[in-house]
C-alpha cells in the first residue's frame, strides 16, 4: 500500500461496517429468547430453563412478570408522588423493567450490587423496601437502607463513580477467598450498573482496566437506554457499546434488555464466570428509556415520539404477559391477584412516602466523622443555641 493513497488499507476494514452503528439492534449480536410478540426463540449460546421442570420454569417466569409489574407500579406511583409535590424529583425506569429484573434475579445472596440512581427494579429484587428508595428523592435522606443488609450499595449519582467501587469490592472478594472455590454458597461476584452515557466517563474505563488487570469478579451491566438526558447513544459510541469490552481484553455481549428471559440468562452466565474466577464481563442490555430522564426533564425538546411509539411495541411486560397467556401458564386469577397486590403496594407507597419525616435540623452534624470533632461539636452547639433563641419568639 502506498501510504496515503488507499484510504482504508492497512487499518483493517471499516469498523462501522463490521459492527454496524451503535443504535442498531438487529442481527445475531442481540441475544433474545422472547420476542416482542411473546414467542420463545432459541439462541445458540444462551438459554433459559435448562434443568428445570416445566412447572418450575413457569413459576419462575410468573415471578419475573410479577416483579416487573410491581416495579412498574413503584415507578408510576413515585412519578405521581413527584407530581403531587411529595418528592422533589424521580428517576423513572419505565421500559427498563426486564433489564433490571433479569439482572436482579440472576444474583445470589452473597453477590453485591452497585446501582446508579435508577435501579429501583434491582433494589426490589434485593428486598429493599421501596419506601426506602423514596427518601433520596423526597430529600429526607441520601439513601436510608443498610447496604450490608441487602448487599445493595447506596445509589450513586456521580456518573460512573460506582463502577470503580464495584471493581474494588470485587478485588476484596478475591482477597477473601470468595471466588473460584467451586462452593456455590461461597463464590461471589459484583454487578456494577451504569448507563450508556456513563460509558464515556474516565472512571468507567478505568474500572474496565482495573477489572481486567486483576481479573476481578465483576459484571459491568450497562443499560443502554439510548439516551443520556438529551444526548443519543451515537454521541458516546459509534459502534455497539458491548464491543468496548473487547478492547480491554474481556468479553462483551449485547442482550435484548426488554427480554427478561434473555437478560436473566446472560447476566446469570456472566455472574457465574465471575464467581468461577474467570474475570469481568460486559453486558449491554439494549433497551429504551420510555419516560423522561427524570420528572424535571422534557424529552419532547430532543426526541421524536415516533421512536417512543416504536419501542412501546417492544414492551417488556406485555411480551411476558402474552407468553404466559398464550401458553396457559397463568390464569386470570393470577393477573387479578397481581393487580390487587400492585394496588396495595401503591397505597402503601403513597402512605409511606407522606410519613417519611423530615430530618431534624441538628442531624446536619451527625455522621460526618466516626466521632464528633470538637470543631463540629462547637458548631452544633452554636446552632442549637441559635435555634433555641427562636423558641421564645414564636
Amino acid at each position: 500500500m502506498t501510504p496515503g493513497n488507499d484510504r482504508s488499507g492497512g487499518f483493517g476494514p471499516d469498523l462501522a461496517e463490521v459492527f454496524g452503528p451503535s443504535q442498531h439492534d438487529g442481527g445475531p449480536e442481540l441475544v433474545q429468547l422472547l420476542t416482542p410478540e411473546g414467542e420463545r426463540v432459541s439462541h445458540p449460546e444462551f438459554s433459559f430453563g435448562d434443568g428445570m421442570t416445566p412447572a418450575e420454569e413457569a413459576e419462575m417466569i410468573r415471578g419475573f412478570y410479577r416483579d416487573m409489574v410491581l416495579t412498574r407500579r413503584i415507578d408510576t406511583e413515585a412519578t405521581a408522588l413527584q407530581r403531587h409535590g411529595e418528592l422533589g424529583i424521580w428517576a423513572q425506569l419505565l421500559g427498563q423493567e426486564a433489564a433490571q429484573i433479569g439482572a436482579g434475579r440472576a444474583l445470589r445472596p452473597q453477590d453485591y450490587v452497585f446501582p446508579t440512581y435508577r435501579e429501583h427494579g434491582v433494589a426490589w429484587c434485593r428486598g429493599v423496601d421501596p419506601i426506602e428508595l423514596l427518601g433520596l428523592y423526597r430529600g429526607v435522606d441520601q439513601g436510608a437502607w443498610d447496604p450490608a443488609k441487602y448487599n445493595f450499595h447506596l445509589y450513586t449519582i456521580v456518573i460512573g463513580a460506582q463502577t470503580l467501587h464495584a471493581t474494588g469490592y470485587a478485588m476484596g472478594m478475591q482477597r477473601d477467598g470468595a471466588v473460584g472455590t467451586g462452593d456455590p454458597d461461597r463464590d461471589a461476584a459484583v454487578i456494577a450498573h451504569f448507563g450508556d452515557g456513563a460509558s464515556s466517563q474516565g472512571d468507567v474505563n478505568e474500572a474496565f482496566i482495573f477489572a481486567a488487570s486483576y481479573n476481578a469478579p465483576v459484571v459491568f451491566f450497562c443499560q443502554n437506554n439510548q439516551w443520556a438526558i438529551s444526548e443519543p447513544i451515537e454521541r458516546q459510541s459509534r459502534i455497539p457499546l458491548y464491543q468496548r469490552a473487547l478492547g480491554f481484553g474481556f468479553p462483551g455481549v449485547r442482550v435484548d434488555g426488554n427480554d427478561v428471559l434473555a437478560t436473566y440468562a446472560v447476566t446469570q452466565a456472566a455472574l457465574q464466570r465471575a464467581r468461577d474466577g474467570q474475570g469481568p464481563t460486559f453486558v449491554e442490555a439494549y433497551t429504551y428509556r420510555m419516560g423522561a430522564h427524570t420528572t424535571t426533564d422534557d424529552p419532547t425538546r430532543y426526541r421524536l415520539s415516533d421512536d417512543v411509539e416504536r419501542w412501546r411495541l417492544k414492551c417488556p411486560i406485555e411480551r411476558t404477559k402474552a407468553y404466559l397467556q398464550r401458553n396457559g401458564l397463568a390464569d386470570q386469577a393470577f393477573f387479578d391477584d397481581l393487580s390487587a397486590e400492585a394496588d396495595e403496594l401503591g397505597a402503601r407507597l403513597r402512605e409511606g412516602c407522606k410519613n417519611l419525616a423530615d430530618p431534624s435540623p441538628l442531624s446536619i452534624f451527625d455522621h460526618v466523622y466516626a466521632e464528633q470533632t470538637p470543631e463540629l461539636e462547637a458548631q452544633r452547639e452554636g446552632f442549637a443555641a441559635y435555634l433555641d433563641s427562636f423558641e421564645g419568639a414564636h
Partner: protein
Amino acid sequence: MTKITLAKGLNMGLRKAMEDDPKVLIMGEDVGKLGGVFRITDGLQKDFGEDRVIDSPLAESGIVGTAVGLALRGYRPVVEIQFDGFVYPAYDQIVCQVAKMRFRSMGKLAMPMVIRIPFGGGIGAVEHHSESPEAQFAHTPGLKVVACSNPIDGYWMIQQAIACDDPVIFLEPKRQYHADKADLDEDAAPEPLFRSRVVRRGGDATLLAYGPTVKTALKAAEAASGEGRSLEVIDLRTLSPLDMAPVFESVRRTGHAVVVHEAHVNLGLGAELAARITEECFFSLESPVLRVGGFDTPYPPSRIEEEWLPDLDRVLDAVDRSLSF
C-alpha cells in the same frame, strides 16, 4: 429596556458574545437541542450550529481537556458544567492544565476559556447538585473566579468573561436563575469584570456577599434598617482576584464586617477576607470579622437545606454578635 431574568441575561450575553466573535464556542452536556438543563444555552445551537454549540460525550475531564486544545487552536470555548458537584472529574485539567498554561509557557500560550458552573443550593435537589466549590478554584493561581448575582450582571459579566484572555471560573447562582427580573439597558456601559460593588450604603457594619447570598444580605440589611441599623452591603463579584479596595474603605468606616457565603466556613472565602481585612484594617476593627456560611458538614438532604444555608436570621445574628462584641 427589556425585563430579564438571570437565566435570560446569561442566554442573551452568550448569544451576543457568539455574534461578536466567531471563535466563541459552547461545549457541554445537553447544551444543544435541550439548551442545557437550566436552558441557559436555549436556542443557541439552532442559530449557531452544531459546530459552535457542541453536545459532548458525558465526561467532564474530556470536555475541559478538549476545550484546552480548542483554546490552543485559537478558539474561545465556553464550557458548561451541568451542576457544581460534577466539576470534580475535570479538576485535574482545570488546576494543572488550564490554570498553568500561560505561566509555564512564559506567556506564549493563552487559555481564554470560561467554565460556567451553576452553583449553590436552595433548589430542593439531590446530593451533588448544591455545592459551592469556589474556594478551591480561588486558591489556584492562574484562574480567575467570578460570581454573578443578578440578571444585569449576568448579561454583562458573561460577555466580559468570554472576552478575558485568562481562564475564568464563572459561577452562576442557580437558585436565582428565574427568581427576579430586572431592566436591561443594552446600551449602558458595564462595570469592569474584576470590581466589587457596594450595592447598599450603610454605616454600622459591612456585609460581604457574592452570588446567591447577595440577596440574603440585602434582605438582612433591609430588616436591620427597620431596627435602626444601617448595614452596608458589598457584592464581591470577583473572588479571584479579590477587589479589596472598596471592602477596606467600608470596613474602616463601619468597624465591623460579616462575610456571608454558602460554601463551608472552614477555609471558605470568608477566611481569606477575614485575614486580609484584619491585616489592613487592624486598628479600625471594633470586632473580629465574622463568617456566616454553610456548616462544615456535607450538604444535607434538601428538606433541611434551608437550615444549613445561611439565611437572613443567621446574618442578623452575626451582625448582633459583631456589634455587641
